[in-house]
């Protein structure tokens, strides 16, 4: 249960990160170069996908009636964290998404 919740929060953050990095100015803010068009599409697509996965995980925990409430809160708070991290530690803000595969591995082997 707690791991599912953690997963929901992680995917919500990663989703918002994808949407954010799919924007020209924020990609530049982290990598100091322009974002190729194709990568932008991939980032946004991955972002939306991660948000959907987050919703699925929330539904696993709370059921479909309560899940949207938790999901909206997680997306809001994830984006808020991202916005505060980006100007100070841009690499860390992106690096946090690295926790998603770690979580996936834990799910597989635990």
């Amino acid at each position, binding site marked *: 249960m707690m791991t599912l919740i953690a997963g929901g929060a992680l995917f919500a953050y990663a989703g918002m990160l994808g949407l*954010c990095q799919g924007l020209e100015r924020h990609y530049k803010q982290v990598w100091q170069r322009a974002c190729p068009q194709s990568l932008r599409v991939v980032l946004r697509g991955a972002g939306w996908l991660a948000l959907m996965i987050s919703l699925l995980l929330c539904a696993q925990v709370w059921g479909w009636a309560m899940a949207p409430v938790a999901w909206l809160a997680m997306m809001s708070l994830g984006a808020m964290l991202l916005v505060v991290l980006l100007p100070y530690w841009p690499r860390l803000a992106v690096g946090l998404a690295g926790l998603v595969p770690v979580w996936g591995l834990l799910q597989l082997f635990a």
Partner: protein
Amino acid sequence: MKNTFTQSMAWLHTWGGLIFGWLLFAIFVTGTLAVFDKELNHWMQPEIPTSEVTQADAARRAIAYLQTHEPQAGNWGVSLPTDRSPGLRVSTGERRHGGGVQLDPQTGEAIEVRDSVGGNFFFRFHFTLDLPRNWGIFVVGALALVMLAALVTGIVIHKKIFKEFFTFRPNKGQRSWLDFHNASAVLLLPFHLMITYTGLVIFMLIYIPAGVDALFAGDNRAYFKAQGNARLEQPRGMARQPAELADVVPLLAQAQARLGPIAGFNIRNPNTAGARIEVRPELGNRIALSKGQAMVFDGVSGQLLSDVTEWRAAPLTQRVMVGLHFAQFGGYPMRWLYFVCGVISCVMIASGLVLFCVKRGRKYASASAQLSARRWYRVAEVCNVGFVAGLLLACVGLLWASRLLPVELVQREAWEVRAFFGVWLLALLHAGIRPARRAWVEQLGLTALLCMGLGLFGGLEDALRLGVAACALVLGVLLGVVAWRVQNAEPAPLARKAGRSVEAGA
């Protein structure tokens, strides 16, 4: 008012936000704290022991106590230990009128517990501002309308919602404050809209009684009856014939299987042939707020007399909205999500208030500005400190008062409330006599210290009390960081009051 639509919206947002923002901040802070009202109750009454007792055992002990001490009472109320409130409380007379006796769930003996307003104070303040109940409800309702107006006007005047969705540029003075205000408002917009709107829905019958007036001639009870909430009539004569009370424990189990975790039960006319046992579920087994619902059993035969009502679509809709506001569902993880969202709402309002002054600081702080304009600017500045930092100080002050005031003090609860308002008033006065920035630093710093110090009162072996102290510690550290940043921001007090925006204080 200004000429164009956007300008008039901006005018409304600015002035409505400033004048009503001070009280809105108080409402949001106390509402956020009320998310953990029971945990705060528990912290503020350290005499209540922590014990792992099953509800069945606790119920038996409660009834044994009542049989010995109150066999003649017309009504017994029992609040069972739950995850969030480990105490066992018994009372006679109507519930919600307070009173009652705390029992040790382990032994079933009465224990002396200090009187304390507890976290319930924040809950009550949140919707009444501690005014007389109906007055308060109307004032807070009006403020909620202002909040909705501020949200809508904010959306109108913020033209780059999606373009600047993720934008926050720190260390740029006014720009940073505006960025932060925008980001925290836009990213949590679903929460802000939901919490404000559902807050209004709770008292919709008080605010808009026309429907009940027209259909039920203003008779609220007839209206509730039509929803299926009819209370069973008490059989009059039978309440005088003595009879043996049925065992509650199997009834509790039956109710739990049907409703989920149980909060407590009432027994009307105990020890008579007319006895009725009403078992109440915990709030939050579902989204819709189940307040007032109960399964009713015959107190002698143990037969189920009436089940919880199934709401029809319209009342269910209202109940779900109210439940969304009360945040009782989804367990602790959901509660924390609500709490953090609430904290950010508070910071959003506070950043808007500070922005008002940051924006005008350059203009009015200089000697060249008109004297009256400078005075009004100073009023805004003082109120900002007093209503933001001062309120936080008052809130943590209440927690300290609950532990420091002598236990045997007469009308102790009233003194706690006096301490809360006294601290708040002192903070406003302090803000009035100190330079704005010093006042911010001193009040935020003191609040931070008091928050961090809550752990000193001990009781940390209790998970709930440890949680309160740990959360206060984290908030205290954040507030300390904010105070430190205000202190060390560049001395030019004009546009760059606190350098960077407040990340997660308040």
